[in-house]
C-alpha cells in the first residue's frame, strides 16, 4: 500500500484530532492573510495620502528648502513657477500636477489666534489632482482671485465657523515681514487625513502669493504619474530643468522623501516575523497532536515496523500525514482570509475617533487590499511551516523499536 494512502486513512481514522490540527492551521493562515491584506491596505492608503497631500509621486522644490524646512524659508522658492510647470508638462509620464505654497498661519477669531497651516493651491488643478470637489461637505470651492478659503472640517469646528463666516489670517511673509488678510469661508471639506482635517485651510494660490508677497512663486510643485511610468521620470525631469537653467531646483521621488511610509515599510518586515510567530503557535498544536498520535499509536508503529517498514518510511508516513493536514488547513485558512478581506475591502474598516491624535497620514477608514502574490506566499508558507514542525516528532516515531513498541501498552 502506498504511504500516501496509509496517511490519508490515518487522518480519516481520528477525525476529531485531524479537525483540531486543520482548524489551528486554518485560523493562523486566515489571520496572516487578513493581516497582510490590512497592512497592504494601510500602505496603499498612506501612499495615496502622502502623494495627494504632501509629497506627490515626484516633488520639485528649491534645493535648499529642506535644509531650513523647520523655519519655513519661503524665500527659498520656485520662482517663475509657470515656466517650470510647462517644462514638467512636456514629459508624457506626468498625469497631473499641483503647484503649492505651504505656510504656517494664525487664524484670528474673536480675539483668539488659532494655529493652523495654510496652503495656497490652484483649485482648478486640484480638481484633477485630488478630486477636491468630492471632499466638500458644505459650500463650494474658493474662486481664483477672490478672498475666499476652504477649511478642514475639524479646524472649522475648533474655531466655531461655518460657510459664509469671515476669518482673518496672519502670516509671515517671504521676507519675514508680517501680513494679514480677511477671507470668507466658502466651503468646509472632510479630508481623509486627520492632521489635514484639523490643521489645514486652502486658499487660492494668487491670494496666498499676495499675502506672502511672493508673486509668481510657489514653494513646491508635486505631481502624480501615469500608471506604469518609468522609474526614470525624476532623472528625465532633472535633465529637462537643468537644460532650462533651473539648477536651483531639486527633483525627488516620494520614496526618497523621509515620511511615515518608510516606517510602514520597515514595519512590513516586522509583520513577517509576527506571521512566523503565528505559525509557530499553530505548529505547536500540530507538534502536540502528532506527538500524542505517536504515543497513542506506538503499538501500530511497532506492528508496521515489525512488518518491515523502515525508519525512513515511518518518517515519510507521518510527514505526508501532516502535509495533508497543513495543506487542508492552509487552503481553508486562505479561503476564510479572502472571505473576510474582500467584503472589508469594499466597506472599509472605520476607526473613527480611534485615529485621533495619530500623527501618521493614515485615513480614518482603511480598506484591506488582497495581494494575490502575498496570499499565495502565505499558503506555501503555512504548508511548509506546519509540515516542517512535525519532522521532529516523526523522527522520534521512527526511532521506536518494534519490540519495545509491541511490548508497551
Amino acid at each position, binding site marked *: 500500500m502506498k504511504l500516501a494512502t496509509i496517511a490519508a486513512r490515518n487522518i480519516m481514522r481520528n477525525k476529531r484530532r485531524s479537525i483540531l490540527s486543520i482548524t489551528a492551521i486554518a485560523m493562523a493562515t486566515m489571520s496572516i492573510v487578513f493581516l497582510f491584506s490590512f497592512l497592504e491596505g494601510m500602505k496603499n492608503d498612506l501612499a495615496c495620502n502622502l502623494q495627494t497631500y504632501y509629497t506627490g509621486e515626484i516633488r520639485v522644490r528649491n534645493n535648499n528648502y529642506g535644509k531650513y524646512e523647520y523655519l519655513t524659508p519661503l524665500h527659498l522658492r520656485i520662482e517663475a513657477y509657470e515656466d517650470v510647470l510647462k517644462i514638467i508638462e512636456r514629459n508624457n509620464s506626468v498625469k497631473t500636477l499641483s503647484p503649492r505654497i505651504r505656510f504656517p498661519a494664525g487664524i484670528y477669531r474673536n480675539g483668539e489666534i488659532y494655529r493652523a497651516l495654510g496652503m495656497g493651491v490652484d483649485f482648478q488643478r486640484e480638481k484633477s489632482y485630488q478630486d477636491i470637489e468630492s471632499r466638500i461637505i458644505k459650500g463650494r470651492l474658493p474662486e481664483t482671485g477672490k478672498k475666499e478659503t476652504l477649511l478642514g472640517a475639524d479646524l472649522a469646528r475648533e474655531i466655531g465657523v461655518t460657510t459664509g463666516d469671515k476669518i482673518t489670517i496672519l502670516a509671515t511673509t517671504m521676507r*519675514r515681514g*508680517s501680513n494679514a488678510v480677511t477671507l470668507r469661508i466658502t466651503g468646509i471639506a472632510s479630508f481623509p487625513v486627520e492632521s489635514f482635517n484639523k490643521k489645514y485651510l486652502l486658499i487660492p494660490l494668487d491670494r496666498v502669493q499676495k499675502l506672502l508677497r511672493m508673486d509668481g512663486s510657489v514653494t513646491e510643485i508635486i505631481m502624480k504619474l501615469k500608471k506604469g511610468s518609468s522609474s526614470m521620470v525624476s532623472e528625465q525631469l532633472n535633465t529637462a530643468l537643468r537644460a532650462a537653467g533651473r539648477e536651483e531646483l531639486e527633483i525627488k521621488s516620494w520614496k526618497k522623501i523621509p515620511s511615515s511610509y518608510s516606517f510602514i515599510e520597515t514595519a512590513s518586515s516586522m509583520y513577517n516575523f509576527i506571521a512566523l510567530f503565528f505559525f509557530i503557535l499553530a505548529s505547536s498544536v500540530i507538534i502536540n497532536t502528532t506527538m500524542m498520535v505517536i504515543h497513542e499509536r506506538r503499538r501500530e508503529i511497532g506492528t508496521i515496523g515489525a512488518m518491515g517498514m523502515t525508519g525512513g518510511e515511518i518518517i515519510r508516513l507521518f510527514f505526508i500525514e501532516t502535509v495533508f493536514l497543513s495543506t487542508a488547513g492552509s487552503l481553508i485558512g486562505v479561503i476564510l482570509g479572502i472571505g473576510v478581506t474582500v467584503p472589508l475591502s469594499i466597506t472599509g474598516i472605520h476607526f473613527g475617533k480611534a485615529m485621533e491624535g495619530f500623527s501618521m497620514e493614515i485615513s480614518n477608514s482603511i480598506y484591506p487590499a488582497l495581494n494575490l502574490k502575498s496570499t499565495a506566499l502565505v499558503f506555501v508558507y503555512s504548508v511548509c511551516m506546519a509540515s516542517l514542525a512535525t519532522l521532529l516528532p516523526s523522527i522520534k516515531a521512527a526511532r521506536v523499536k518494534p519490540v519495545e513498541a509491541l511490548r508497551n501498552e
Partner: protein
Amino acid sequence: MMKNILLPILAAFAIPVSVLAISAEDVVRKLEKNTVIKTAWTDGCLLIHDRFGTKKTTFISYSRGADTMLIEFTSVEEEGMKILRTSNEIYLFYPDAEELIRMQGAALKESVLGSDMSYEDMTGDKSLLTSYRATLEGIEEVDGAACYKVNLEAKSSDVPYYREIMWIDKELFIYRQIHKFSRSGKLLKEISINNIRQVSGKNIPFHMVLKDTLKRNSSTEFFINDIKINLHLDPDIFSLEELTW
C-alpha cells in the same frame, strides 16, 4: 608700605560708598523722568539680521508719554501695516484685513516682523518700581561711561521678564545696556544703546541693538533717522477709529 596696600582697597570700597549716596529707586525714577517724552514723531528703521541675511524695515512713529504709540511701516514689504499701543493693549492693522487684530495672551510672545523684539516688549505702562524691586549693585563702565548697575527683580508674575539688570548712565540717566532674564536665571534678551544725541534738551539714543539670546545668529538694530519732540499731536491718531482709516 601699609598705605600702598590700603589705598587700592579703599579705592575699591569707595565705589559702593558713593553708590550709597543715591538709592536704586532714585536712579530708576530719574531714568524714567529722563526717558519719557511728552510727544514725539520719529522716522526710523530696523535692520533685522538673521541666518538668511539682513532685512531693512522703515517706519514712522508717533508717541505720547510712556504708554501710547502708533507705528506706521513705510517699507514696501510691510507698507500700510500699523501697530497701535494704547495703555497696555496692542492692536495691529493690515490693509487687507477687515478687522483690527488685538494681540493678547500667548500671541504677545511673538516676534515683531521677525525681529528680536516681541510684542510683549512693547507693553508695560507701569513704572518699573511698581512691578520690580530695585537694588543698586555698584558702578560699572559701559562703552566708557560710568553706569549705575541696577538689579530689578519682579514683585509679581505679570511681567514679561522676572529679572532685569540695567546699566544706567551716571551722568545722563539713560540706560546704556539691559540684560533680561527668566525666572530660572537664563539670559533672554540683551539691549545696548549707542550714539546718544541731545534733541531739544533730551538725551535720545539714535542706535539701539537688541538681541534675543534664544535665537541663533540673530540681532536687531534700531536706528532713528529723524526725531521731533514735544510737538502737537492730534489725540485722534491714537484712536482705534483712526487706525482703520
